[in-house]
């Protein structure tokens, strides 16, 4: 446990999270030094977290210790197995809860109660405990029992609808944006509850509904509805490559030379527009009708067509660079290889650290987009194999002996 960040090193998290919406939250805590102990089921070999066995893979090996996504989301954590169907398993968990600051989970509502570790039971074991639950619809309300995953959360919270182009079905988010965001919000909730406990000694339960966290990301659109009565579902909308809040034009994603290559360009104001015109040359950009934002907003289809004709024959990086040189916001739509292996910004940042996984070996993972001047994050250890730290944790926390551990294993508790 050496060479870890000090920032959160005082805290122990008894962690039942999985997938990304939960595991993403405790990834942050572990990177800043918290002792995150993943508790998993030995009978299903941790299979509740389906990412354990899902692609991508570093080689031909398969199984619960080889999922690349799991490794990505669980760096710096320890992993233990406890069979909560057994009395002894429950007793051991109770002892761990007593020694933890936080219990975190993202099961469907009601699952922790069925284990016998609902909030009331947790509080009885540890009166100062912080319990943060994260599920699609929260623990109350008519849909509390409904099931979700990222795309369903996004559908319900308006985010799928607001990503798309006119006359086409919703494009949505091509990944579980709300699993990432659910993880961020969950980690924020844990930290907020820790601040309150540090200052008052009081623990609490935080009920996080991912759909509500998603809904908060539509603020101005929702106020346009409650104040002006204007719905987002209206003709011509959504048209999300354009920008109405704030209003900008031209503003879009334009074709470039090459295979599925695109470039994003945004003119924030008249000055950007004139600079774009100077880069493109020709009379088009000096047309009086386009001198003002109002004039450009009124003719966006034509603007986009003309701009596309110009970008189409050019390299996306060259277009972006020429516009950046003129002070206009522009960026190539980067493919994974381009932004990960060729972008000087992400490399200089150390954004893709290599971790050592006990079975996979050295693997690159997502790092964090911040650097702290005194207690920066460290991500060096890969995600835990199933039960990798069971003995270590039970010895360290509960003083278990070798004989005891052997017996527990024989009895199917570990």
């Amino acid at each position, binding site marked *: 446990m050496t060479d870890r960040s000090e*920032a*959160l090193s005082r805290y122990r998290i008894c962690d039942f999270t999985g997938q*990304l919406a939960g595991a993403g939250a405790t990834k942050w805590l572990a990177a800043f030094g918290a002792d995150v102990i993943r508790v998993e089921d030995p009978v299903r070999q941790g299979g509740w977290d389906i990412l354990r066995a899902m692609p991508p893979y*570093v080689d031909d090996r398969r199984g619960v210790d080889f999922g*690349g*996504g799991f490794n990505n989301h669980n760096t710096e954590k320890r992993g233990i197995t406890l069979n909560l169907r057994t009395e002894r398993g429950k007793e051991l968990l109770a002892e761990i809860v007593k020694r933890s600051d936080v219990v975190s989970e993202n099961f469907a509502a009601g699952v922790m109660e069925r284990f016998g570790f609902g909030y009331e039971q947790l509080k009885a074991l540890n009166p100062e405990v912080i319990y943060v639950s994260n599920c699609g619809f*929260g623990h109350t309300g*008519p849909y509390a029992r409904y099931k979700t995953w990222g*795309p*369903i*959360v996004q559908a319900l*919270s*308006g985010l*799928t609808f*607001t*990503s798309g*182009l006119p006359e*086409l079905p919703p494009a949505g988010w*091509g*990944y579980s944006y709300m699993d*990432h*965001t659910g993880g*961020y*919000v969950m980690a924020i*909730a844990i930290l*907020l*509850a820790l601040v309150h406990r540090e200052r*008052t000694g009081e623990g609490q*339960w*935080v009920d996080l509904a991912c759909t*509500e966290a998603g809904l908060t990301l*539509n*603020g101005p659109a929702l*106020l346009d509805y*409650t104040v*002006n009565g204007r719905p*987002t579902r209206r003709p011509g909308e*959504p048209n999300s*490559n354009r920008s109405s809040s*704030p209003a900008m034009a031209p*503003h879009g994603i334009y074709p470039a030379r090459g295979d599925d290559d*695109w470039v*994003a360009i945004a003119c924030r104001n008249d000055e950007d527009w004139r600079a774009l015109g100077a880069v493109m040359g020709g009379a088009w950009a000096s047309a009086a009708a386009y001198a003002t934002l109002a004039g450009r907003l009124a003719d966006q289809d034509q603007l986009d067509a003309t701009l596309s004709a110009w970008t189409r024959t050019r390299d996306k990086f060259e277009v*972006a660079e020429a516009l950046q040189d003129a002070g206009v916001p522009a960026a190539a*739509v980067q493919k*994974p*290889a381009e*932004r990960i292996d060729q972008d000087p910004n992400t490399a*200089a*940042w150390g*954004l893709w650290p290599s971790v050592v996984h006990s079975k996979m070996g050295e*693997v690159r993972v997502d*790092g964090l*987009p*911040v*650097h*702290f*001047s*005194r*207690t920066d994050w460290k991500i060096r250890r890969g995600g835990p194999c199933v039960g990798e730290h069971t003995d270590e944790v039970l010895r360290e926390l509960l003083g278990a002996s070798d004989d005891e551990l052997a017996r527990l294993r024989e009895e199917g508790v570990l």
Partner: protein
Amino acid sequence: MSGASALQGVRVIELASERCAFAGKLLADMGADVVLVEPPGGDPSRHYAPFAGDRPDPERSLYFWHYQTSKRGITLDLEKEPGRAILSRLIEAADLVLEAEPPGRLEALGLDGAARCESQPGLIWVSLTPFGQHGPRRDEQVTDLTLLAGGGPVWSCGYDDHSIPPVRGSGNQAYHIAGHYAVLSALTAYLHRLAGGEGQYVDLNMHAAANVTTEMASYHWLVQKGTVQRQTGRHAMETITMETQTECADGRHASTGVPPRTPREFQNLYEWIVELGYEEAFPESVFLKMGGERESIDLSQIGQDDEVTAMFAAGRDAMDFIARRVPAFDFFKGAQDRGMAVGVVYSPEEAFEDEHFQARGFPVEVEHPELGRTVTYPGAPYRFEKTPWRIQRRAPLLGEHTREVLREAGLDPEADEP
């Protein structure tokens, strides 16, 4: 429920910017005392549409209203020495500074955040910039669109037809992503300080934040050099997958989620088809019934065992069959009530009006005394048992709290003309 706030008494100075406004709101709505510092003419986002009553006015921007809740607002001219001196004085008494100024601007004004953290050891300073303070691209101009395009999310979003441009989801999500990371950073640094440590300077890179918010797109490349491809309304994957989004009878869409896999799900789906009167019309009803009567279904037999293959296909087809024949909301409720994970593609306002979010009290009323009315706002991202999220007050009018804040700092608002 007590009225305590998690961040009561935590003093935050926020230099107004569209890029850190969301982070400030998250802290302020949890009880922090956030003082928003605007230039004398106001933050540019006061001019962002939409406006209350569609009347453009710096006090009526709904964008500004949303992102500045619970904050107090002052104006200071940082281009002039008295304004800088007052800001410096306010920072002396602060726990946290939140800002998104372009790299170098504050140093030029004599307000270097990293240096300030050295001279004021308890201070936490969170700086959001497009590419970090020192990176090779640090001087590039960005908007939400270009951050999401260059940072990865856009590559994964769009349509099966790749002659259509990839899509940026709306709502300024690049700022939300960075805002969440800013708050994570601020709270982590604050906990370290509460434990007896010093404050510190946090350099937040918005482009990096987008890069690590792309799920499989990044880790498929990192692990197996795989490149995901965008697909309509579903996950970008290395391979093309089955569609999961269906247009329902009312023209709205539903996400059909994961097809039925267990005997109980097949049984429920069969009963639903029967209830709707489609047992005859749906050609594969018999396979649903068979699935429901089984002890167990081994999905690894798909493609090998004809019966399992037929059942699995029937389950998927049945979901699609029903979705096309009922309104999207009925499909969502019907499936979820039968234990199947399905979503209705709501517009934001439809979600806002939904019975579940209404029952949980998601919409909240906020007083707008200047208008003599209350306004309904989106509510809590999380439910704290003891320290509830709460909008303390509507966004500040321009300079509304200048005198109050200066007086609290021991400055004479008359003499120290900001």
